């Protein structure tokens, strides 16, 4: 009975949480001032506070993870601790799913309800007549009720290529995991390296798509509900891909430079790969609901 708790690890006091709290405070307070400054076109110091906050958070993450890696490498963690980490990561990913859910919800609401209603559907004939009688309900909404015009992003160019890239990267990520579990370090390194590379290519193409949208198509963040949902969904997804790529890159460096992780113990790698599969699934939904349908 007692061995269940044999090496339960209550960490010593740590200064990283309070550093992180100060960092988050700087980010929030700085960002709060910064968006006000930017939209009013005045210059202030809030932007610097925001940058300082980001720097503090990066410093905190590096230090905190170094602590955890050191503790883990020196064998302080039990199986139970490992399970706690895994469950914690799964619930974190679930919370991310719900975050995207809010934006997918907004997209579906706009398509199913608000745009048709503005066009007079259901019992909204007089809404349509009184507000914008010339408005025609359509999706993608290329002409908004107030008359702003934009172009719709097709699915068969860059988006299709990006879908293939991301799906491939999920497969290579899986091969890397298999390689790690079977202790085939070469397979692990090649497959993981390929995953990171594909992640980078995806991001570069995504940036290209944004440039194309802004400069040639006139599709912007402010282009009505179509542009709003397009940019916030793909934008937040892009941020998550960035984060996932950084995580995988760090795992790659740990494996190549420090020879970390064993077939039995590789929570850090597993968390990063779970995260990668998660952003991949989000992309598939995005491709379906934002681009194709």
């Amino acid at each position: 009975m007692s061995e269940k708790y044999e090496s339960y690890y209550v960490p010593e006091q740590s200064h990283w949480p309070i550093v992180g709290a100060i960092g988050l405070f700087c980010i929030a307070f700085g960002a709060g001032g910064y968006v006000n400054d930017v939209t009013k076109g005045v210059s202030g110091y809030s932007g610097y506070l925001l940058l300082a906050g980001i720097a503090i958070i990066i410093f905190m993450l590096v230090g905190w993870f170094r602590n955890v890696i050191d503790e883990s490498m020196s064998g302080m963690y039990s199986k139970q601790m490992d399970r706690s980490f895994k469950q914690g990561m799964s619930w974190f990913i679930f919370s991310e799913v719900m975050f995207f859910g809010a934006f997918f919800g907004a997209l579906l609401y706009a398509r199913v309800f608000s745009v048709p209603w503005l066009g007079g559907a259901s019992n909204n004939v007089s809404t349509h007549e009184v507000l914008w009688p010339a408005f025609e309900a359509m999706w993608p909404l290329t002409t908004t009720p107030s008359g702003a015009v934009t172009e719709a992003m097709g699915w068969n160019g860059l988006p299709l290529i990006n879908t293939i890239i991301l799906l491939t990267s999920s497969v290579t990520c899986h091969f890397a995991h298999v390689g790690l579990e079977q202790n085939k370090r070469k397979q692990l390194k090649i497959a993981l390296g390929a995953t990171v590379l594909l992640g980078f290519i995806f991001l570069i193409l995504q940036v290209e798509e944004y440039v194309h949208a802004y400069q040639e198509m006139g599709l912007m963040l402010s282009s009505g509900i179509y542009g709003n949902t397009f940019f916030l969904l793909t934008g937040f997804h892009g941020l998550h891909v960035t984060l996932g790529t950084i995580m995988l890159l760090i795992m790659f460096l740990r494996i190549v430079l420090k020879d970390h992780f064993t077939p039995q113990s590789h929570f850090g790698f597993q968390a990063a790969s779970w995260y990668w599969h998660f952003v991949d699934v989000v992309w598939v939904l995005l491709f379906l609901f934002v681009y194709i349908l």
Partner: protein
Amino acid sequence: MSTTENNAVDSNHHADDHHHGAPKGIKRWFLTTNHKDIGSMYLIFSLVMFFIGGAMAMVIRAELFQPGLQIVEPDFFNQMTTVHGLIMVFGAVMPAFVGLANWMVPMMIGAPDMALPRMNNWSFWILPFAFLILLSSLFMEGGGPNFGWTFYAPLSTTFSNDSTAFFVFSVHIMGISSIMGAINVIVTIVNLRAPGMTYMKMPLFVWTWLITAFLLIAVMPVLAGAVTMVLTDKYFATSFFDAAGGGDPVMFQHIFWFFGHPEVYIMILPAFGIVSQIVPTFSRKKLFGYSSMVYATASIALLSFVVWAHHMFTTGMPLAGELFFMYCTMLISVPTGVKVFNWVATMWRGALTFEVPMMFSIAFIVLFTIGGFSGLMLAITPVDFQYHDTYFVVAHFHYVLVTGAIFSIMAGAYYWLPKWTGHMFDIGLAKAHFWLSLISVNVLFFPMHFVGLAGMPRRIPDYATQFADFNAIISIGGFAFGLSQILFVVVVYKCIKGGDKVSDQVWEGAEGLEWEVASPAPYHTFSTPPEIK
């Protein structure tokens, strides 16, 4: 708790920490990874916020004492109602429950600490900063948020002031804190139960918190999404909630209440758990219908995801929607009724004694049920057309939140305070606190039903003279309730400083692991797993 060979790994690395109890000095509180320290900080923080939010309520009641505008400007009045709501929800009630969970969940399931102790500290320490940002916005040029705690668009987008960005980012931090806290609670309960502590042997407080934590992780990110859309609508020219760009202000309400309705169960499920711990103790009986309590809690949680639009009956939803949300909402009264029935059945033919926690619990059962019934009235769509946005709604949610959530927190605090401090609190003062609170809270909130039914709108600094008498009475009740809470601080302070020593069991009839450890509870409980019978 002696440290034995099975703590060899621990003692190698932080022997001091483990053998000699709490470290000294201010650094203890900033750097701690101990669930009891963090629980205490959460509780003290929530008490401070309770008084700050309460002070704002006093401003509101002072202005409403008489018809006409006399004390504050209407815009400042709106800031008070907004920030009062935000502080009480996110600053007082939720952190208090997280504090109780931090203290009690590991002790109740025989765990040595929370599963992720450093993250635990982080999720606490970002909270004071979040509220620092929110409160500081009140002193900025143009004032603080003034659109109500529900921040409906376009009040929060087109018509809001510059503090909106600060509001948005502070809510983001509160959300991060809640999500991390909830992840910690879930992982602790799933992974750190002592051997033999099966799910259906867990104390009900642990069960309700497990389900609450799930709700938190599911809906706090949706709130983050909602505030993000408000931010982009206000500052970056998006039109999620603007019909001119194809959006819809009503969409805001859908997204907000998809978060908001589970949120109100987040604030009441742990209360159910606390009362389900206390009532059996002072009835000297096992809880009646333990498993039905578990299933009822789970049903309430699941139903909470499909009732959100009952807050929006007057927005012109299609009829099918109104009917669906009406029936689903009324369905919730079934599992809630099961719970109330079970508490009463637990007391039935029990050997009852009326210690302070029990008094608060019984008051909870009666007054929460009143709040539940007024909720049932509001659930009926055609009736809600009249009640919507009146003081009847204010009466309803204050009955479930003040005499519900807050009373249960008081009950829990009195119940476990002797275990935390090792001292019995001043029973005379605590009883005075109870009776003064009980009477004043009803003077405060009960007449709101009447003025509400008569048509007095909420969130209005001035009103028709026909409501004057009742409003004067309400305000007097409000001041009395506010002042009574000072007694609580005195009781807690005295109890920490000293008092009669209590036994490990503290209350005759108390059962569970937390009553088997010493009083005060040692800094590290259960370095060896306890025996579960």
